[in-house]
């Protein structure tokens, strides 16, 4: 049985071609992303030399700065240099932290990853659950309440929700900490992944794990609000579509249990449509992260990108947007392939 299941997943020729086409598109799009990022951060009215050298730099200082950063060369040459550096894993140096951008990203990405993963997990559990419930109780009061809840989720300003949650749960009730990743008294666990919860778990530091979780849960729930609304809606319509199919009626007619019909037949068939939203959910989490990390003093990539853009730290802005865009299209690529795995009809096109 396990063997048969595995064989079904083995890539067929059509599937291989499907993945190949997607891979080519992925590479082309990545090159496009680099060009766009480059153009955006290099064709600026603001003069980076002046922005970096402070008040009244001498002409020789400016020339020197431009020499070092290749700013005196024509744009296409600069673009070529940029690609060359990228291939060597060099994103340049931040003008604010004076560290290599790759190093800064390495510091901030795990913090955001931890937050994003937990948040999407929360949104998936509640969104899919609510959507399923709404579809099964179609046109009842439950359905109506869930509809309003999902609309509230996508309508509430994340930054405002974060403030209210902080005011209530930190300032008034004192149930949750007021920001950052750990209490000041706690030392970060030994660095493995950079995600404090995972690292604490690996090191067996239970009190640190608990502390990290307590700091993580409030921002994660707030970031989940919009995605929960989105997933409720998608799941509901996907499930409704499936419920009308003949084989569901057949399963009901032959007397299968309700549980088996709902989870084995309906949810299984609705899954591909739900999976397609995950790329969108990721974009939503990042949008929220830029705002929420700011409020929760969470040292993640959202806050880093925001600070870079305020300080006009162009190499850092380019690095952040490049990284996020590439992760985003890779996630969409994985979603596409997953969709092909879950729904074989997609492969033959």
């Amino acid at each position, binding site marked *: 049985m396990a063997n048969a299941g595995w064989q079904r997943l083995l890539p067929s020729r059509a599937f291989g071609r499907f993945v190949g086409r997607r891979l080519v598109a992925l590479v082309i799009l990545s090159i*496009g992303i680099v060009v766009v990022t480059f153009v955006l951060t290099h064709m600026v009215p603001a003069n980076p030399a002046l922005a970096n050298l402070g008040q009244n730099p001498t002409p020789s200082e400016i020339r020197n700065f431009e020499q070092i950063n290749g700013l005196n060369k024509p744009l296409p040459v600069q673009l070529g240099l940029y690609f060359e550096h990228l291939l060597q894993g060099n994103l340049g140096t931040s003008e604010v932290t004076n560290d290599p951008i790759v190093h800064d990203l390495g510091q901030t990405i795990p913090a955001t990853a931890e937050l994003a993963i937990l948040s999407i997990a929360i949104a998936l559990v509640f969104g899919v659950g609510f959507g399923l419930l709404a579809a099964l109780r179609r046109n009842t009061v439950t359905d109506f309440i869930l509809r309003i809840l999902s609309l509230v989720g996508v309508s509430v300003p994340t930054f*405002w929700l974060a403030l209210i949650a902080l005011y209530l749960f930190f300032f008034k009730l004192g149930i949750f900490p007021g920001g950052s990743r750990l209490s000041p008294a706690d030392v970060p666990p030994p660095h493995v992944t950079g995600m404090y919860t995972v690292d604490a778990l690996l090191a067996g530091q239970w009190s640190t794990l608990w502390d990290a979780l307590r700091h993580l849960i409030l921002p994660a729930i707030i970031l989940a609000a919009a995605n929960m609304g989105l997933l409720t809606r998608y799941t*509901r319509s996907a499930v409704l579509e499936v419920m009308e199919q003949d084989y569901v009626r057949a399963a009901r007619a032959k007397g299968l249990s309700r549980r088996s019909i709902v989870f084995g037949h309906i949810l299984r068939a609705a899954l591909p449509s739900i999976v397609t939203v995950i790329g969108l959910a990721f*974009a939503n989490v990042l*949008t929220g992260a830029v705002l929420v990390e700011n409020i929760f003093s969470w040292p993640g990539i959202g806050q880093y990108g925001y600070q*870079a853009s305020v300080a*006009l730290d162009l190499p850092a*802005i380019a690095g952040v947007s490049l990284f996020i865009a590439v992760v985003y*299209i890779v996630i969409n690529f994985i979603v596409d392939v997953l969709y092909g795995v879950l729904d074989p009809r997609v492969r033959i096109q």
Partner: protein
Amino acid sequence: MSLTSPPDLGVVLPRRYRRLRIGHPAMRRPLAITGAVILVIWVLAAILAPVLAPDKPDAVTSSLFAAPSSAHLFGTDQLGRDVLSRVLYGARISVPVSALLVLISMVIGSTLGSIAGYFGGFVDGLIMRLVDLVFAFPAIILALVVTAVLGPSLQNAVFALVLVSWPTYARVVRGLVLSAGNAEYVQTSRLLGASARQTLVRDVLPNVIGPVVVLATLDFGNAILLLAGLSFLGLGAQPPTAEWGAMVSAGTQYFQYWWMSTFPGLAIFTCVLALNFLGDSLRDALDPHGSWTTRGGGR
């Protein structure tokens, strides 16, 4: 088929479209009515702000951080300005500016989308690759870069948001023009001797308008959220402008005076919620299949 995600709004586009009728049953449902009423209230607040507001939005008084009371219903802020007045005047920025933003995105996106769908070939490829490229960035990241590079101001924030939101319309309109162009009734109309313009205006356009209106309504809410978000970050409207996002942002520094950020945030929330109530009901009216209102599962 493209690598990037579906339109940025969580719009589940229906497979078949119905023409939009305002008298449709779905439009009379409580949600649509609630949405419309709240929206009308905000539009009225924006228009009548000078009459309704107890104070000028930037009138400084000596009572700083006054809690909500009969003198100041929503309290006062760090400069002693009346929060209620500022929230009312704030509607004069968020509502019309976001509407303008949506309108510009809609016009640019729909035009490019119909050009792509109508002409096909090289033009189509070029426009759609551009769309793919913009979609490859999460909207906030691109908006962050653009506002940072151009300098923080309300105009630049709007420009940045137009830049990230036109592709949604382009993609949807292109698809609609393509599918309408291939539909049997359009082919028939052509065979019967209708001119290209007649076909476009009489048969293709009505099929495109409905979904675009739904999209624009939902995008309107999204635009308000993003614009307020950019202002919250200090990249949009600048102080002392009475803008909702910027007001919430000011409140973050005076955490204990909850009214400073709660009321402007509530304004954003109700405004966006109203638009989403309305957009959601419109979507139902347009596509009864799988909607939240139709009864029974008949196909």
